């Protein structure tokens, strides 16, 4: 659970970047999340030490913002937009389809740990719904065939890693 060299370097850059040190909090949480796929207490402590801020500042922000889960999600973390424009284009059916294909409940992780599935509010992709975000990538204008193909490719990729 050690911070990587890349993370340490980025945290040091953030430390001197803002007029106030505390401003680095959100960007620091992104650094930790990007490395581990979640924000754990140990990593937050190490980050706080580098930034020379109380670890409480990081924990407080992590509890407010939705992008920093405290527990590990699947290797591929699927977030389906459920807000109005996407619902009008079939997001509920997309969610049911994903639960069925992955054999997982909303909010759950597949047994092999490859996929986790969650529903989220508007991702700013309303003209291309239904859509989902998997890790950093947007997948838009989804239909059954396209979604199935994406899952298959990611499953393959997970196997080869």
């Amino acid at each position: 659970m050690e911070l990587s060299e890349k993370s340490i370097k980025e945290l040091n850059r953030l430390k001197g970047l803002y007029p106030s040190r505390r401003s680095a909090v959100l960007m620091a949480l992104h650094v930790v999340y990007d490395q581990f796929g979640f924000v754990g207490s140990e990593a937050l402590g190490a980050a706080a030490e580098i930034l020379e801020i109380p670890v409480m500042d990081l924990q407080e922000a992590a509890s407010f913002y939705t992008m920093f889960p405290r527990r590990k999600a699947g290797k591929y973390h699927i977030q389906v937009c459920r807000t109005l424009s996407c619902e009008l284009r079939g997001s509920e059916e997309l969610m049911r389809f994903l639960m069925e294909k992955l054999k997982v409940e909303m909010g759950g992780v597949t047994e092999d740990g490859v996929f986790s599935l969650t529903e989220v509010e508007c991702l700013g992709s309303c003209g291309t719904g239904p859509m989902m975000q998997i890790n950093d990538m947007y997948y838009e204008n989804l239909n059954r065939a396209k979604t199935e193909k994406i899952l298959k490719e990611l499953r393959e990729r997970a196997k080869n890693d």
Partner: protein
Amino acid sequence: MIEFEKILFRYIDHPGQDGIETYVQNGGYQALEKALKSMSPEEVTEEVIKSGLRGRGGAGFPAGRKWSFLPKGVNKPVYLCVNADESEPGTFKDRELIEKEPHMLIEGTLITAYAIGCRTAFIYIRGEFVFGASQLKKAIDEARAGGYIGSNVMGKGFDIEIIVHRGGGAYICGEETALMTSLEGHQGYPRVKPPFPAVSGLYGCPTIINNVETLCNVPHIINRGGEWFASLGTPKSTGTKIFSLSGHVNKPGNYELPMGIPLRELIYEYGGGIKDGHNLKAVIPGGSSVPALTADKIDVRLDFESLAEAGTMLGSAAVIVIDETVCMVKAAYNMTRFYQHESCGQCTPCRQGTYWMLKILDRIEHGRGEPEDLDQLLEICSNIEGNTICPLGDAAIPAVRATLQNFRDEYEYHIANGKCMTTMGPRFE
């Protein structure tokens, strides 16, 4: 269909437009050069005031006038925050500008920074826009290498840095004071105004906050003059506007059109009409925070004044099209769930009001509603209205009040029969 001149989208699908070389070939950074070499900061502000440019984030406040509110002779740094926290449901225009025209936003930011005497500008981009943030970082590096960012830009003594700051997934941080609180490293709670950000904003210093689309207009206003810009659109809503069209249309997408274009034209001519041959039921013209219009009202023009007269708002110009198969109770439930989820919890009327509205809508939607629920919903709306620090509370009201006003029969049917009046067929093919 009339072809209007596109200002912001002229080169949007031009290959390489996101790189500095192509951007400069297509006239990029000429406005910055013009501003720095031949205009004083006051003249830049004056030109933007003359253009009539109003904020594109939703409130529609005149941009140049906002800049002129900065107090003079204060011995503190001035900050510029670019609001790229686009998250109003239905809105996806800033994302396209950021991903495909990042240099236009950088140039607008630089000119604005020059006008207001700012040396450090922040672009607060919503956390989920990972690609957008990387596009901006790349553009900033290119602009720095090209001598447009840094110290003594173009030898004119203009020092400027731009910092890209990623949010953490909170709708509330698009509200200007919450954005600043968040940027300071705190939970994103809005602040009471006054003091307004121009007087006491980021780190207690004078701060200007502008939306992405607003700033993208600035280079064009400097290049072609405020008068030219004011000649586009309507007298009070000048320029073009990017309309994010979504929902049940054949061709959803972003359309840049002059302010004042009729809603009917946007839906039927540009958007290709209603999908699958259905009839139109309702349109939300400015993001989910504004009242929906019924199908008979779509001859309204899309500008700040006309939509206000029609009892709704232009907001972020996110046009959500709803066809006859949709149950409006379910639509209201969906939107209320959004506000309940995104309420920061600071003010009781919003935190509790959205919670109870969602509970009541949930039981109506699932066949357990009571006739008195409808008056109860309206009462909660009145209890939220005007009683919160920021506009999120008020923004949660139209989803309930406007649907109840226009589609009360659907609510009553739900309560009497325990199910929707309409059935939305499969949409996911």
